[in-house]
């Protein structure tokens, strides 16, 4: 499916590797994003968020475990591992157990089409972007299973709110991503990224080549906050109202899996917005005359670095927003989605279409 011969060389080589009948290479391809999610959630996701939130609130954050509290997350994980895995007696045991699994699988499946650099992608589907938008909807099933299976009012309320919110915000998010797909003329993640590559670095990104792209960019960013249940759209888990929302009843490793799924989808939406509007794994540095910064900072390893850095930047913005804005009310949430984001995304869609036709 890849057009350029240099694309996907590493993942193609890996997927061809097998020991006897066992496709070890394919397993490794799947394991790499999994290990990445675990490591990033452990370091930047939890420790970074706690530190960033602390600094924004003039606090110090975790300081006791290790130098500047660097081992705090490890201590928390050890604690979670030792905790009793409680399943409430009146819970729907099947749904309760399978909920976190579906949730994590939903966010992890989208990693299959995220290109980690020009040489590595789980599956370079020609409908990659569409697949990513569609597969994330599985998360809704997981959330509903967890909330309903808990047999808990808070959990059920959290789940209902979450489902309503995610289903609503998928519309502006999808229309915004459609603008990017129109600009690229393809749905393949690698092809969308390739369209934005060039010696000019960031000048080739859709956000800067297109005069309207900032609108779908903003709309997708806002919608992605809602889809990942991040503040100010965190009404599904609103601590002050619903204890912990749909995972109120969860403890131990199931709780950890839900958290991992949340951090996984945080990176996933950040990576998608980077690919759709900010050039994915392409280097932001332009070639200036003889100083070929862009050529120097391109390649498989640099590509992985850039996509991860862009993802981390958007995760930082998510955290930044979380510690700035208060939570929206349910009616405000729906107002924003149906009366502001959806009409504006349609306007952006039409304007982008006109722009694409005229170029």
């Amino acid at each position, binding site marked *: 499916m890849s057009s350029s011969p240099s694309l996907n060389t590493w993942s193609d080589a890996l997927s061809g590797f097998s020991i006897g009948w066992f496709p070890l290479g394919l397993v490794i391809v799947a394991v790499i994003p999994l290990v990445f999610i675990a490591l990033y959630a452990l370091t930047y996701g939890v420790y970074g968020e706690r530190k*960033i939130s*602390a*600094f924004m609130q003039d606090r*110090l954050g975790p300081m006791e475990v290790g130098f500047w509290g660097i081992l705090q997350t490890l201590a928390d994980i050890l604690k979670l591992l030792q905790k009793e895995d409680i399943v409430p007696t009146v819970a729907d045991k099947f749904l309760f157990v399978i909920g976190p699994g579906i949730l994590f699988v939903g966010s992890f499946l989208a990693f299959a089409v995220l290109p980690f650099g020009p040489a590595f992608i789980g599956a370079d589907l020609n409908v990659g972007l569409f697949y990513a938008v569609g597969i994330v909807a599985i998360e809704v099933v997981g959330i509903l299973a967890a909330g309903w299976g808990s047999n808990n009012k808070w959990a059920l309320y959290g789940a209902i709110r979450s489902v309503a919110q995610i289903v609503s915000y998928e519309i502006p998010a999808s229309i915004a991503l459609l603008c990017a797909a129109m600009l690229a003329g393809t749905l393949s993640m690698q092809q969308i990224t390739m369209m934005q590559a060039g010696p000019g670095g960031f000048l080739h990104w859709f956000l800067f080549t297109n005069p309207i792209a900032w609108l779908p960019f903003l709309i997708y960013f806002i919608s992605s906050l809602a889809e990942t249940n991040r503040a100010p759209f965190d009404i599904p888990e609103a601590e002050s109202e619903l204890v912990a929302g749909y995972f109120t009843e969860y403890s131990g490793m199931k709780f950890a899996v839900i958290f991992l799924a949340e951090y996984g989808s945080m990176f996933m939406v950040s990576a998608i917005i980077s690919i759709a509007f900010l050039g994915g794994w392409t280097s932001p540095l332009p070639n200036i005359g003889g100083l070929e910064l862009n050529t120097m900072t391109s390649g498989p390893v640099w590509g992985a670095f850039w996509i991860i850095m862009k993802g981390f930047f958007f995760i930082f913005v998510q955290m*930044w*927003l979380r510690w700035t804005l208060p939570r929206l009310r349910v009616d405000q949430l729906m107002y924003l989605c149906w009366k502001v984001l959806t009409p504006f995304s349609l306007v952006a869609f039409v304007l982008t279409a006109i722009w694409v036709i005229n170029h």
Partner: protein
Amino acid sequence: MSEYFSNIKTSATTIATGMAITLKHFFNAVKRKGDAGIDDADYFRQVDGLCTLQYPKEAIPTPTHGRYRLYVNIDDCIGCMQCERACPVECITIETIKVTNDDLAVCGKTSGGQQKRMWVPRFDIDTAKCMTCGICVSVCPTDCLYHTPVADFSEFDVKNMLYHFGNLSKIEAEAKKKKLAEQQAQAAKEKAAAGGVAKPGAPAAKPAPKPAPPAGGQAGAATVANTVSGIDF
């Protein structure tokens, strides 16, 4: 319709303002708020930077004239027991032994130059009871009892809240008590002898006090010794 757009505009500007504020705080996190005390003129002006104080490791300095933990400079204590009497919650317990004449030089003087006439083998302050009212401090004639700026003196065992400030060890205290008793007995004997020679008019009254001092002294010494050994010095 104009309200619709003005709402969007307000949202955008307020979000931008809010994010600018949080970002400013984020970048100010390289600074600490500083430890300017309440006396500092700039105390309310230091608004930038982290304000967390990692308490056991760092603390705001307590004012030097605040009423915190009591301390007895026992070298200056003359054993007048005024503090014990003044204490409204009876958290001070003092025992004294009179200094014999030959020990006056050993016992020494206070820093104010006053001759001390009492050994103070026991000067206990039960800090758990103390309410830091400071009355004991105000009545102390030699200013040997005063508040220190130590504000955190929590203990895991409440027994450790009993502070001992005596200036004699158990053995020393017993020795001094014995010495005093002997000397008093000696003095009484001499007095009795002198009285017997000079004033034969009161022999009936004499026998009573005469055996009393040794007996009383012994008994007293024994009880005090018990009390003293009961206290954990």
